[in-house]
């Protein structure tokens, strides 16, 4: 299950409009989705936002990966729905719990769009353009790079400890966490050695040679990026207006055809 969730967050090299967008434009999009889906809890606007993310996923040609991710997180969605449905005292508990589950789905889908269509190196570049120091951006890239390596290593250690009789599956939450200690410790110690070897390799490739550095990739904020960003901002402002100025139910009344 855990690996499937990652599917929807891995960059996939395709040629779509979304892939060509500047990461900064897509960051604006994420923020918009976050704002919109957090201010509304009604079913109808939530559905609209959700459908819009799905449309973008179709545009990004990433439906399969996204579905895998969603399948992987299905249990969480179900839990959100059930907990709310049974615990909320409200009379519209059903529609509310559906929209809360949708909110979760929408937010992870928005992030998934970002990560699936943004080449990580460009994300690092965007961070640098946003005045994040290069070292931090590099640390981010490297963290992404070493996730699969660490996952593989963790699995090796788990297998090794299991073969020596370590039981990981049974017991309650606390007990399980405790039982993972013999997995964490070697993982932890190994990462020190790894960090040192990585640093050594980086210096051997002239890291720290000069204060200036050049970049293979370049970011360009095109007209399309501007349009996309504007669209996000306008829609978000519209949402904020409806929520805090017009009032959601009044807007509904306004939108209803006059008799």
């Amino acid at each position: 299950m855990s690996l499937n969730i990652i599917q929807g967050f891995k960059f996939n090299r395709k040629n779509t409009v979304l892939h060509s967008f500047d990461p900064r434009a897509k960051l604006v999009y994420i923020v918009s989705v976050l704002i919109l889906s957090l201010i509304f809890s009604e079913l109808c606007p939530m559905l609209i936002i959700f459908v819009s993310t799905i449309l973008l996923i179709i545009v990004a040609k990433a439906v399969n990966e996204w579905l895998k991710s969603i399948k992987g997180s299905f249990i969480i969605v179900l839990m959100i729905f059930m907990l709310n449905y049974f615990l909320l005292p409200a009379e519209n508990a059903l529609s509310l719990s559906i929209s809360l589950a949708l909110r979760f789905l929408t937010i992870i889908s928005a992030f998934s769009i970002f990560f699936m269509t943004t080449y990580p190196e460009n994300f690092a570049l965007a961070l640098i353009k946003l005045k994040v120091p290069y070292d931090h951006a590099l640390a981010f890239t490297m963290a992404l790079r070493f996730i699969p390596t660490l996952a593989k290593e963790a699995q090796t250690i788990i297998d090794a400890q299991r073969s020596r009789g370590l039981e990981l599956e049974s017991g309650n939450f606390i007990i399980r966490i405790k039982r993972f200690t013999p997995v964490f410790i070697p993982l932890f110690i190994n990462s020190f050695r790894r960090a040192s070897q990585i640093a050594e390799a980086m210096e051997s490739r002239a890291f720290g040679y000069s204060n200036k550095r050049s970049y293979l990739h370049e970011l360009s904020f095109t007209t399309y990026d501007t349009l996309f960003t504007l669209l996000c901002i306008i829609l978000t402002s519209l949402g904020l207006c409806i929520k805090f100025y017009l009032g959601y139910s009044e807007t509904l009344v306004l939108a209803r055809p006059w008799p």
Partner: protein
Amino acid sequence: MSPIIEALNLSFRYAGEERWAIKSINLKIYPGELVLITGPSGCGKTTLCRCFNGLIPHFYEGELEGILIVDGLSIVENKTCKLAQRVGMVFQNLENQLIMLSVEDEIAFGLENLNLPRDTIKERINEVLSILGIEHLRYKSPYELSGGEQQKVAIAACLAMKPKILVLDEPTAHLDPLSSKVLFDILSSIRKRLNLTIILVEHRLDMVASIVDKVIVMDKGQIILQGGPREVFTTPIIKAIGIGIPKLILLYEDLLLNNLKLDFPPLNINEAELLLRKLLSR
């Protein structure tokens, strides 16, 4: 011709250790040579390699004595990041030297550090990808690659910086025999093409004996033998150290004990066949 690497009484002791990891190393390596360094585990091969690009004394702390001049630069006065343009280093651990998310970026990393213009970076990426025949891996992630492929990427990333010297520390430790053979073929072809000086730490002597110009045998931090491969491998004291002497050399010595003398110690199958035919026709 003057040596490209010259060590005079070079010794190094890691901080907090009592023993010298390498002791009184004297060597001369000439431009274009392919030099093999071998010796039992813990004899100081990796430590010596770390000296060649200044990781010792700049990255590893400790006590350094003697002199090491690499391509005209003293390792004491020049940091690793400066020496990087002259000495490329391929480490034993394959994965921890590949730090970026794609092969292309991996190769670009060193060039970006050197602040080279974008066009040059692109040119060099294409160049090294084609030299190593890995154009198809360009957009792959390092963790999607096999050991042999990772090795080629690590070499490509070094070569892109156009070093004069390439140091490889046990490059085949994680490779199967076939990929190792491929690697050695690549090394012997690029050394001529790029005019490289190559220093190779290796245990698989059978496979490399015929491509190296010089062999350096180390034991307990010291160099105990150095010279041409035929000469070094047939020196009697080499048997006492515990390194895997090439089988063809063993065959040569066995025949010698039985009063069958080949003209010279063979280093590869072709040579051995030729010499044996000659012996039989006598």
